[in-house]
């Protein structure tokens, strides 16, 4: 007799529904507590304060309209960066790849701010984050 047959023999239909309900409840609680609650996203805020959302997990290169003209933004290998920017006199210096939720890259003269929002890194405890702010 297989396990399935044994299970079928010693349970009513109601028992099976009950068992399924319990299993779903436990799974739901575990996912909510321990798991990732969704895909990380790239939030691009342009010069007109309009926000565009891209999934971090999908590679893409696209243009965003900035104050000084179009700016290219690249998402690759779960990282994002400003590909081209005009930043005279080192004003918009927060550039380069970012990959973790909470991180920001920006071209200040262009009026563009890119931030990763999502689950895992935002769930880090304060002690894991090195600094709450860096004064420049």
């Amino acid at each position, binding site marked *: 007799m297989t396990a399935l047959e044994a299970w079928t*023999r*010693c*349970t*009513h239909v*109601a*028992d099976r529904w*009950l068992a399924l*309900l*319990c299993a779903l*409840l*436990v799974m*739901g*609680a*575990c996912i*909510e*507590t321990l798991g990732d609650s969704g895909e990380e996203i790239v939030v691009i*805020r342009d010069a007109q*304060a309009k926000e565009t959302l891209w999934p971090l997990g999908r590679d893409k290169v696209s243009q965003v309209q900035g104050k*000084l003209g179009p700016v290219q933004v690249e998402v690759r290998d779960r990282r994002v960066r400003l590909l081209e920017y005009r930043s*005279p*006199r*080192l*004003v918009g*210096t*927060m550039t380069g790849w970012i990959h973790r939720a*909470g991180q*920001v890259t*920006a071209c*200040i*003269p262009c*009026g563009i*701010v890119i*931030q990763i929002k999502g689950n895992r890194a*935002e*769930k*880090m*405890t*304060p*002690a894991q*984050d*090195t*600094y*709450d*702010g*860096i*004064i*420049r």
Partner: protein
Amino acid sequence: MRGLHLKKAIPLLMLLAFLCFWLVWKRPSHQELHTTTRLAMGTLVKVSTWGTTASEDDNGVNLVFAKINAVESWASKQIPSSLVSRINHAQKGTVWDVPEEWVTVVKAALEIRTLSDGAFDPGLGYLLDLWGFGNGVAEEAKIPETEKISAWLDARNKQPDFGIQWVQSTHGNQAIQWGGFSYELDLGGIAKGYAMDLAMESLKRSGIANALIVAGGDMIIAGSKGGTPWRIGIQHPREHDKVMAFAEITGDMAMSTSGDYERFFMANGERQHHILDPKTGRPSRSGLISVSIQTAKSIQADALSTAVFVLGMAKGKALIEKLHGVEGMLVHENGERWKSPGFKGQWLEGS
């Protein structure tokens, strides 16, 4: 025995339901930290709140940016319709009705101008434009013609007084008559600090007691993160991705840092940065490369960090020690470092 029957399973079901509830309820509280970054006043402004719900945080963030944008709308020299722009472009000697907050900022600026013997000056608008630092997006980086700088210095030396007359307007409001012919207002060195003070006050009034606002070189703090201090890094003046010092702060405090590393260009083998010395009309050569000031109010910290930067190590230290409730951390290009005894923060090893 055929099956468990639903009635008998109720305790089991209740136990499982309790387990699920407990797991969700005992979730770590780390999601109480909310962070939002946006552009405002020509820099990135990061707002963090602790112990708030998402909607409370949203509301707080909107209040912060509303306050900052409101100050920018009258204080920015880059906005043609701002009061500062209109005063700058009007005929000197015109009488202007000015709002209370304008009076607060300009009086604070002039007070620090006096305290610092002119090292901080809110009237350098023309000079900053001449150097290309007025709008931050100058295409060509070059040192202005010596004649133009000399002409400005001559005009200033003939009228060392700022030239503002505080008068009563016909409507009974505060008004000014400004005849400072060589000066053009640029409140960039103080208005951001004032905006941060207002932003934090509005957060507190909305019921958010634990918050951090960082805007470039300015920062203001309230409360803590559930008893854990806010941890602030101070950027290394020569290694862009490095922090040279850090501070762990609980409670109300403002901090401002001025350095020669954020806005500059290289010419004639020298770093031509945006902190101009009003006495030379050129980038300050005091030897200091980074100055951090801690005070209760951001408006004061913002202006004092610039003043101390221009004054240099000896005079800067003397000014900090003279002022009650003001602490400082100074770095000289020769490697010398100093911090006042009450400065909350410490150097990082190897920085």
